[in-house]
């Protein structure tokens, strides 16, 4: 977007970060993106987005697993309908076990696949404002706003306790301190 500015605020703790985000919602910022090294309920709550749709996919996957299991077990039993041990050819107690296992299998695979799709991972581009420190021990709030609002945004971030507040373009991506070689 032409004319918009990206400001990055770096926080050392999640409480300050969440506080800052809450304050930012009162400003007409165009977009807020938060980087954090850990999942944080506080930050998620402050951002206030609806619950992830991964849930619906997992439920669908699970139901699909149950149906597949029923189709598989009943279908193959009918096709090779040998009386094994006097049990009915289509007997529900063993089939329940297969239903359960496939429900979990399909549900689990759906969870991972829908996560990958929704989170847009694998990600081949680095998001604006990202710094390696945000994967280690800092929380980053990246605000995109009009240049006119940038001073207000910067002051909000500083008041909330940001260690550093810079423009995204000036933000170094990598720390340069390798621990493991």
């Amino acid at each position, binding site marked *: 977007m032409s004319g918009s500015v990206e400001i990055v605020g770096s926080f050392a703790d999640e409480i300050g970060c969440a506080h800052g985000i809450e304050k930012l919602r009162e400003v007409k910022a165009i977009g807020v993106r938060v980087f954090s090294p850990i999942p944080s309920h506080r930050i998620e709550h402050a951002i206030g987005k609806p619950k992830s749709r991964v849930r619906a996919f997992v439920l669908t996957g699970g139901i699909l697993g149950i149906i597949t299991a029923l189709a598989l077990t009943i279908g193959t039993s009918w096709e090779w309908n040998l009386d094994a*041990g*006097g*049990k009915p050819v289509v007997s529900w*107690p063993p089939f329940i*076990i297969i239903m359960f296992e496939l429900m979990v299998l399909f549900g689990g695979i759906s969870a991972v696949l829908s996560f990958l799709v929704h989170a847009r991972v694998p990600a081949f581009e680095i998001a604006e404002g990202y710094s390696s420190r945000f994967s280690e021990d800092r929380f980053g709030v990246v605000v995109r706003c009009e240049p006119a609002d940038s001073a207000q945004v910067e002051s909000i971030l500083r008041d909330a306790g940001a260690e550093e507040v810079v423009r995204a373009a000036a933000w170094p991506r990598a720390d340069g301190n390798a621990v493991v070689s």
Partner: protein
Amino acid sequence: MSANLAHRTPSSASDAHGSVPVASAAFKGLLVALVLVGIAAFAAALSSGNADRAWQAYLVNFLVWLGIAQGGVVLSAAFYLTQGRWAGTTQFRLAEAFAGFIPLGFILFWGLYFGRTLIFPWVLHPIAQKAAWLNTPFLFARDGAGLAIMTLLSLALVRISRGPEARAWQLSSSDIDLPPPILRKIAPALSICFAVVYSLIAFDLVMSLSPAWHSTLFGWYFFGGAFWSAIVTVALTAVILRGRLGDHNVFRNPTVLHDLGKLVFAFSVFWIYLVFSQYIVIWYGDIPVETFFIVHRVYYMPWKAISYLVVFLMWLAPFVTLLGVRPKQTPAILGTIAFGGIVGVWLERYLLVVPSLSQHVVPLGWVELLITMGFVGAFVLCALPGLDLVAAAATSGEMQEGHE
């Protein structure tokens, strides 16, 4: 703060203070009337040729209500063992609320002695091979001793849990400090004894009614069901008290109902797992000395209908309904499922006991109904002092630091 609070002294040593009366005098009168009706019905049944039904109803109710009362105390012990504190002192008071029935249950156990010829088939027809175990003196001695131990341990745990040191721990938010030392000994001891004693009760008072049958998982299945019966009773009580205690009680916090709903859900699944584990082994092996017990109850009417109803009330309904987050937090839904669960537990104990003694008839009439009412009255009456404490804890605003 609620207006109808009597004394609120969280650090009080005595449990007589800090209680809010839950029941009016009229309600207590009703309960007493129910008890009297139950006793009268029992006597009437004995003298009108329905003695077998009377004793069957007695046994079923004894198992159900003592199971709930005892399971509640075990739930409190479980909270200590897992250090799960999510509702301050209230969750402990709630789980322990029904403990008042345990001593009465112990006394009622001895009442079974007088009906033994009608309850235990092996009294009049001893089985030579099992006589060393299935004989009247030994059975009553071992089960009596077991229940005595459980009664003493339960009362001790409840008393200590209501004391100041325990209450301080219940309210603290430190998730690394352990409960007071004495509780660290009683809670595991009580839990272990519960498993052993209630397995014995299951083998002796339920399994032995069909002396030819056996299932190694039966004891576990029985006390697992008893534990769940306590959980649903606790959940129902929480829902009821939520409505009755005004606007600022702990049960109005949606996470409390959510956690209770999770317990109802999880242990319902555990119960069906134990049912299925027995069913599939017996079904697959198809050995007649094992299958007759199941076939009689599950394959043929009239008991078949009750089996299906039990599975519906104890597993299918809770599972499907409480799967999401919202239903667990909705009092009406949780309460209905919990009430259905209690009915289901009663029917389940009934299904385990009575078909062994009454082959083709499902005795469900005034005898069973009135005797059950009597037990319900006695149970609630015994639970009232405990419930008063729950009401006090729920309205005192005592929560852990860090919760709102």
